[in-house]
């Protein structure tokens, strides 16, 4: 067998490794081994790539290659080791963006090599150019889109949808220009046209993500992840590399599936999630309501009152949100839950599918605090229980319990399934302030007569509640 056949064979093994790695994720028990298997498969494929003659005999470029890999590893390992679990979505967004960027660069360079080859006469086959265009287009959108998603998640810019005049016209113009340039590139194989198209694709990624509201970012990250997968697959077509096609397509398909599951969890279509900010100015009126509502009275309780309320309750449901994560209060929440359980109170956590900043984020955070699985209940499982709950303790959550999702048709979150904290006998909000949540809309539940507010950092207020329950 020739060396290249061996390479392809090892690539096939690596592809099987990736499929098994994804399969491992079906249960928490085998997930970690699965991931290790995936990492092993990747290492094997990379090692084998060094034996390909064009890589092995690349001379100074081989040295550059190793240098780039060393620099990349030196940056990635500490970044991945140190990132806080709360900042995980940003981290995934960055790693996803650079992957998309790499795929776009591969497609671009593959095109340059193709057209600058000594033996090159005339124009490459149309399908070759189409593969390159797809790789660049999807890769660039994923790169710049992920960058904006990162900036939004890091709260360097507002999480609210960003709209500007003539947005639809500008977007349509960029879209049409890209299609026009793509067609022109296919006809002429001109490198300059392709470069202009790449720049416009980067612009498209930015203007595509800007109008997407913060609450919808979990769906967005999932979609961008899928884009990078497809860009990698397109690069695989250009290079005739089976492994890239299989790995990229696996990710593309799984990302699209996850994106659809997420939109369903928000009770909206994917199109609605991505494009709802266009043309509708409901968010602005929501903001105005919020400003006016600040004057309305809310009931503020003391930790002692709330501690007694919970200590003598039969059933307490803890509804965690991103505020709990920001305050790193997951450990204190568990302490409170354990204390209540010891007193014979039934306690469980009700987790909204989009609580946090990415799909399943809250589960990771509570797992970090060693909260046992059987105390975590999915929304559908938790909602029937809330009507019989004595206390719904909402810790740093807001949008996921906002009844506006059910009863205010104009609201940006209208139609999103919520956790029905409003059904409980008493509702306790642990919140920093009256500020609205990530979606930027006011919550009527805060003014409900059944609701008691306890303002402050989630960790501080929970610590006070622990003390209050102990002495109750």
């Amino acid at each position, binding site marked *: 067998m020739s060396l290249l056949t061996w390479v392809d064979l090892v690539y096939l093994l690596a592809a099987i490794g990736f499929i098994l790695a994804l399969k491992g994720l079906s249960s928490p028990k085998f997930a970690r081994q699965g991931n290790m298997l995936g990492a092993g498969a990747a290492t094997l494929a990379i090692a084998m790539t060094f034996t390909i003659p064009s890589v092995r005999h690349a001379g100074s*470029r081989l040295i550059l290659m190793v240098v*780039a890999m060393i620099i990349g590893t030196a940056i990635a390992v500490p970044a991945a080791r140190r990132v806080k679990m709360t900042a995980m979505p940003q981290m995934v967004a960055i790693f996803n963006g650079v*992957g998309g960027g790499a795929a776009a660069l591969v497609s671009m360079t593959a095109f340059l090599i193709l057209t600058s080859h000594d033996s090159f006469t005339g124009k490459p086959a149309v399908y070759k150019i189409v593969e390159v265009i797809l790789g660049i287009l999807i890769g660039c959108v994923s790169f710049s889109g992920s960058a904006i998603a990162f900036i939004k998640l890091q709260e360097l810019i507002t999480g609210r949808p960003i709209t500007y005049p003539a947005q639809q016209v500008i977007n349509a113009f960029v879209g049409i220009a890209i299609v026009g340039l793509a067609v022109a590139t296919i006809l002429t194989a001109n490198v300059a046209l392709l470069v202009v198209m790449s720049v416009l694709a980067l612009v498209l990624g930015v203007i595509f993500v800007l109008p997407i509201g913060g609450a919808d970012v979990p769906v967005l990250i999932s979609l961008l992840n899928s884009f990078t997968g497809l860009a990698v697959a397109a690069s695989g077509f250009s290079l005739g590399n089976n492994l890239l096609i299989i790995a990229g397509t*696996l990710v593309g398909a799984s990302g699209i599936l996850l994106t659809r599951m997420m939109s369903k969890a928000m009770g909206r279509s994917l199109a609605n999630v991505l494009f709802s900010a266009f043309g509708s100015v409901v968010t602005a009126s929501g903001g105005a309501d919020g400003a006016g509502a600040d004057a309305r009275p809310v009931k503020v309780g003391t930790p002692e009152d709330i501690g007694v309320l919970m200590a003598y309750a039969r059933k307490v449901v803890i509804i965690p949100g991103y505020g709990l994560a920001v305050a790193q209060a997951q450990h*204190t929440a568990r302490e409170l839950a354990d204390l209540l359980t010891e007193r014979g109170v039934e306690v469980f956590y009700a987790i909204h*599918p989009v609580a946090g900043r990415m*799909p399943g984020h809250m589960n990771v955070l509570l*797992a970090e605090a060693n909260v046992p699985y059987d105390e975590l209940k999915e929304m559908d499982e938790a909602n029937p229980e809330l009507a019989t709950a004595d206390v719904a303790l909402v810790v740093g959550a807001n949008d996921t319990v906002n009844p506006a999702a059910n009863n205010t048709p104009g609201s940006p979150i209208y139609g999103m399934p919520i956790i029905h904290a409003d059904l409980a006998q008493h509702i306790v909000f642990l919140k920093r302030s009256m500020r609205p949540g990530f979606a930027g809309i006011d919550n009527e539940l805060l003014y409900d007569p059944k609701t008691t507010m306890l303002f402050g950092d989630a960790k501080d207020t929970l610590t006070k509640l622990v003390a209050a329950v102990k002495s109750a």
Partner: protein
Amino acid sequence: MTVGIIELLTIFVLAAFVGNEVVSKVPSILHTPLMSGTNAIHGIILVGTMAILGQAQGDVQTILGFLAVLLATLNVVGGFVVTDRMLEMFKAKPSDRPAKSAGTPEEPGQGGATS
């Protein structure tokens, strides 16, 4: 490595079905590790960037190839490390721990880890 477009398309379509099938069985509790794990898997573009840098001619192609290798390394290494860190936490199953009654004494250690 000169394979016809139809063969490549066949692989693409079959992989799409496999991806859909495998991922539909992942429980929502593992959705974050799933995203992070798939994110790491598409980092295998590193293999493609290596091939490209190997064939590059001239400064422009070499610079683009170098950047591509760098970005892809960030993706694949960071992706797998971050996913491993997450999944490590999931290994603690409720039955493995001597139940919640022992929860309070371990709290100081837990608190230290948060800062």
